[in-house]
């Protein structure tokens, strides 16, 4: 084998390794079809000169116990194809108590879990058994919220899911 051929083989091997590395890297950074963002905000109530009360959502980086925390999840289909069976699942942190009736999501069926996310159902179908007594589940029992989209999320379309909780 000439030195030149040896050099070519080396170059080929190097190329293969580089390609492999590149594809591995490409796989790791491969974009999904959706862009998902969660922001946390608080309600700010202002009264203007005419006595009009306005409630708006402002950035919430810090909270004190008793304050209402508002989470908004936005999910946008950044692909060329419709996304089917879109389901958004959000655990409720132990420090938070879900505000009854606050979950919101246009075009979604909103379900809750009282067992750490193992099973989900509509809020009025859930029960909790404590000390052998079964009772309807309340807002304080919910561990997870799930929004189940009723239709496909079209290419370029964006959905929103929101809920509020009180910091305990």
């Amino acid at each position, binding site marked *: 084998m000439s030195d030149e051929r040896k050099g070519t083989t080396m170059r080929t091997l190097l190329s293969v390794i580089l390609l492999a590395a590149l594809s591995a890297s490409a796989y*790791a*950074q*491969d*974009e*999904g*079809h*959706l*862009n*998902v*963002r*969660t*922001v*946390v905000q608080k309600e700010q109530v202002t009264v203007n000169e005419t006595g009009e009360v306005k409630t708006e959502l402002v*950035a*919430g*980086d*810090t*909270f*004190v*116990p*008793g304050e209402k*925390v508002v*989470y908004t*999840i*936005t*999910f946008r289909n*950044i*692909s060329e*194809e*419709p*996304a*089917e*069976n*879109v*389901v*958004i*699942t*959000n*655990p409720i*942190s*132990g*420090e*938070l108590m879900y505000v009854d009736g606050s979950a919101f999501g246009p075009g979604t069926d909103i379900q809750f879990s009282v067992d750490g996310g193992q099973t989900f159902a509509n809020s009025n179908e859930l029960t909790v058994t404590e000390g052998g007594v079964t009772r309807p589940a309340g807002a304080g029992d919910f561990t997870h919220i799930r929004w189940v989209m009723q239709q496909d*999320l079209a290419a370029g379309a964006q959905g929103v*899911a929101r809920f509020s909780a009180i*910091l*305990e």
Partner: protein
Amino acid sequence: MKTVVTNAGLLARLGVTAATLLLSQQVLALGTDAGTTVANQATVAYNVNSEIQTPIESDPTGNSTPGAGNPTEFLVDRRVDFTIVEIGGAHTEVSPGDTQAVTELQLTNTGNAIMDFDLSLVDLTSADPDVHLQTDTDDVLINYAIRVANGDGAAGVPDFATDLVWVDEIAEDATVVIYVFADAGAILPNDAYDNFTLNATAADDAGAVATPGVLDALLTESPGADDPTLIESVFANVSGADGGGNATEGADDGYHVNSAELVITKTAAVFSDPFGSGKALPDAVIEYTVTIDNSAGAAIAESVVLTDTIQIANVALEDEAYGVTQDVAIDAAFCNADLGDADTDGCSYDAASGALSIAVPDIGIGATTTVTYQVRISPL
């Protein structure tokens, strides 16, 4: 390499979140501790062309990479909230001369951080609102002092010498007893009220761990916009003596003085006269009756001394009016007012000045002592 760092970061965050969750479950009833980071993350599952895709986790700035995003977090600020109440709903009873008369108040930390509290006492006046429906009578008790029970003595027994004068490191939802000590002056009118306000001001290093044994800096409400990187202070107290908006709350309490309350009555009657006429003639003997009544008092009257100045220009104390060495009658007993009798019985009379001084035994609550003595009108 970047991916690895991200994963490590995520794991670290998850670790923190798990620890935080555990902690918050232990102290759930007390409110989430200041400084806790609360994380939230949504996961979106979906299909494309009926193929199940890797779920995507949310990120505060948006994530489209399948799998790990970053949780959306916030920091729990310090909610400064506490109550101070007096115990018993009534004034503490004191008598003149009492020392270190104790009244108790209670401070409860209902906020979400360990706190120090500075204490101060304001002595109220008659111009201030009533306390327990009683107006301050502007009679000052002396040497008010504050002590905080530190649990090193017998239960409920304040240790004046060693207890702190401020509240150190009181945990969330914990209650501490604050003692106020007062010394009552030796001379105080019966039924006097002395009211005070005990103020507590929240103190702590801003956002830092409090220092045991040291009264930390007094708190001020964190001004301006929220700083996401700092534990800031929000004052939840809107009621109480100060009207809210600062770190101070107060409670009112006071002392009620139980003292003797003496009513003195003096009457005169002709005891004898040269003609048996019953008139106050020259050389007639007049008997004075002095009643000292403690019916309205709430304490035994001690060290009572009755003084009278006999008008020697016209009359003189009748010596031995009731018998030998019995110049003055005090209820059923007698005393000798003669000069030079060493006055061991507390009675004395100075014929040159007419000064009569009679020591009266203690007069009990509700009791009356009657003192009688006689004078003779100068003969013609």
